[in-house]
């Protein structure tokens, strides 16, 4: 089961990045055209492509306020348009009718721990998983197998062709340092990583040989062989993505042009004619080429020669513009930003219409609380909440930026529990103010704030939490708290300190409601078909059974 959850998040992660990669490619393609028009050296075009490959390489996205992406994976407009389809009730501003329809898929699936993935990333994952969840298991498996086979295929192709080539390179002699002369290779190239070696056709001589070696040395100095290998590996993973292939091809071309620029920089511009002639001789002469399959490089020579002939040292202004554009694009294209703070008036209007579309398990909690008739505020708190005891609680912000202000003292929800993405309830219980935060469809966070000590004194994470209805009779009411964990297949109920007070031993059922009056505890249990039953036990008895029986 765990295996499938991981696999699903891998596949959705890849798809998520693929969507971004397509957009990034288009932007970079335009930027490259602009660079070309402005005669900005190709060096900067290479950096452009690195932005795309960097995105493919990063599993997580850093945050910044100017990022194009809403944290979780899609551009702003995309999110707004598709929000109605999101399978999560707790994104503020959503209409209830839409979300209810989507509830069924995700809410029953056991989730990964909440601490290890950002919550919005989880939202997006759940959504995509819901989409994938509509596919039958066999189809998903086939998709995964197709993808995996493709990856392996391309990796193998690369590996095998390297091995075959290596065999050809056997008959070689070292010319100097890391440079080898080889019989029967069509062109010079760099191969190997630790260390990289230059292989030059043994037929080359004189000026041609010097230029070719200089060109390959420049590749090594600029670490192009590493960049190209890394890009190829990324392309193996995203082999299904036409834009990634296009980026690989374009980057290869830009790398060659940029390497030529660097060579010209070292040679001085007066040698450009000789250098171009070498390139032409090696591409045109019959001596070195025959029977080599057509590859990406088609038409390269003409472009390169034109580029070499036209190349001028860039003016400082052009370089400055390129650097600014590049860093701007990198930041905008690579970072995500937290969801936009919605306009206060608008959200309020929507919020008042929005009742809490709580997922099944937490709904049980609502019920028990409703029956307990505690002071609960069952909306999204558009206005400051006046508690009967006279304390005022104001909730501002959104999703991860929830701020709770109690009697003017501000607290950041994320400091209390960083997985909470919406506040569901604010209740009063003895001297405590209890906030109920939504963590996932199956789990809630309960923070207990003591109005006496003015501190957050206790916190619980569970699906359900309640306390003795007759807490007035107790010396310390908080000791009457009981709770149950989300989707615990054993049905364990804990006391306020986290000791087990009952193990229900459930199968195909889950705890739906908890109620406590004195020591009488009533548990409502529901099976997946929706049939419910009640179990009653005595708090003291269950303790005895646990510790002595």
């Amino acid at each position, binding site marked *: 089961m765990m295996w499938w959850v991981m696999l699903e998040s891998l596949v959705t992660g890849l798809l998520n990045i693929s969507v971004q990669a397509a957009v990034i490619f288009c932007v970079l393609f335009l930027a490259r055209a602009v660079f070309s028009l402005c005669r900005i050296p190709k060096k900067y075009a290479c950096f452009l492509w690195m932005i795309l490959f960097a995105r493919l390489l990063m599993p997580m996205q850093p945050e910044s306020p100017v990022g194009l992406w809403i944290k979780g994976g899609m551009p702003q407009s995309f999110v707004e348009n598709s929000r109605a389809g999101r399978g999560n009730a707790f994104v503020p501003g959503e209409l209830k009718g839409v979300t209810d329809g989507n509830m069924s898929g995700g809410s029953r699936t056991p989730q990964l721990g909440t601490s290890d993935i950002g919550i919005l990333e989880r939202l997006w994952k759940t959504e995509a998983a819901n989409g994938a969840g509509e596919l039958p298991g066999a189809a998903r498996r086939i998709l995964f197998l197709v993808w995996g086979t493709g990856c392996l295929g391309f990796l193998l192709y690369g590996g095998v062709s390297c091995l075959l080539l290596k065999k050809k390179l056997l008959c070689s002699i070292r010319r100097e340092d890391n440079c080898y002369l080889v019989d029967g290779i069509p062109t010079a190239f760099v191969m190997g990583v630790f260390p990289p070696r230059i292989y030059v056709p043994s037929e080359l001589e004189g000026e041609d040989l010097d230029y070719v070696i200089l060109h390959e040395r420049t590749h090594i100095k600029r670490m192009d062989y590493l960049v190209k290998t890394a890009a190829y590996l990324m392309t193996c993973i995203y082999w299904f993505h036409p834009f990634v292939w296009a980026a690989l091809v374009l980057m290869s071309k830009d790398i060659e042009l940029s390497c030529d620029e660097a060579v010209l920089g070292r040679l001085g511009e007066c040698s450009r004619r000789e250098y171009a002639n070498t390139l032409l001789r090696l591409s045109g002469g019959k001596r*070195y080429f025959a029977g080599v399959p057509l590859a990406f*490089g088609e038409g390269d020579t003409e472009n390169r020669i034109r580029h070499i002939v036209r190349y001028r040292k860039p003016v400082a202004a052009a370089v400055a513009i390129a650097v600014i554009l590049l860093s701007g694009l990198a930041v905008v294209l690579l970072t995500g930003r937290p969801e936009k703070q919605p306009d206060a008036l608008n959200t309020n209007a929507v919020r008042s219409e929005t009742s809490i579309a709580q997922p099944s398990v937490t709904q049980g909690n609502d019920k028990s609380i409703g029956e307990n008739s505690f002071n609960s505020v069952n909306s999204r708190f558009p206005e400051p909440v006046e508690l009967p005891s006279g304390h005022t609680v104001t909730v501002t912000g959104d999703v991860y930026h929830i701020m709770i202000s109690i009697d003017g003292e501000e607290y950041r929800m994320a400091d209390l529990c960083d997985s909470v993405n919406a506040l569901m309830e604010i209740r009063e219980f003895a001297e405590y103010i209890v906030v109920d935060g939504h963590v996932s469809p199956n789990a809630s966070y309960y923070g207990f704030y003591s109005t006496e000590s003015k501190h957050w004194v206790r916190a619980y994470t569970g699906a359900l939490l309640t306390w003795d209805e007759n807490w007035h009779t107790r010396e310390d009411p908080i000791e009457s708290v009981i709770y149950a964990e989300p989707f615990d297949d054993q049905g364990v109920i804990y006391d306020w300190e986290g000791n087990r007070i009952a193990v229900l031993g459930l199968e195909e059922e889950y705890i739906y409601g908890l109620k406590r009056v004195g020591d009488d505890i009533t548990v409502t249990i529901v099976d997946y078909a929706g049939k419910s039953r009640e179990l009653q036990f005595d708090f003291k008895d269950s303790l005895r059974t646990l510790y002595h029986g």
Partner: protein
Amino acid sequence: MEDYSLGLVEGRFADIVWQNAPLTTAELTKLCEKELGWKRTTTYTVLKKLSDRGLFENRGGTVIVRMGKEDFYARQSEAYVDRSFQGSLPGFLTAFTSRRKLSGEEVEKLKKIIEEQE
């Protein structure tokens, strides 16, 4: 058709054999290690390759010449040299030139471009 072409590297190796033959394979590997920086296996591989082309022969550990240097180059000039490269270069290597041969027309056009450069 027999292949009467030698690459530069093969040529260097053949020279060593032509100059020193007959010699034992042990002597040859030692010489090649000194002159060309080759491993034993490389020497054997290339010796085998050239023996298959009828240049040399490994007769019980002694390398003998079957076709002399002058003889070989005389024949080579008659044979059409077509050096083909089977198997393509992996795309992620930084190769010097594109793998497509330019046509004569294209070469002329590019020559003009280079010449026109101020």
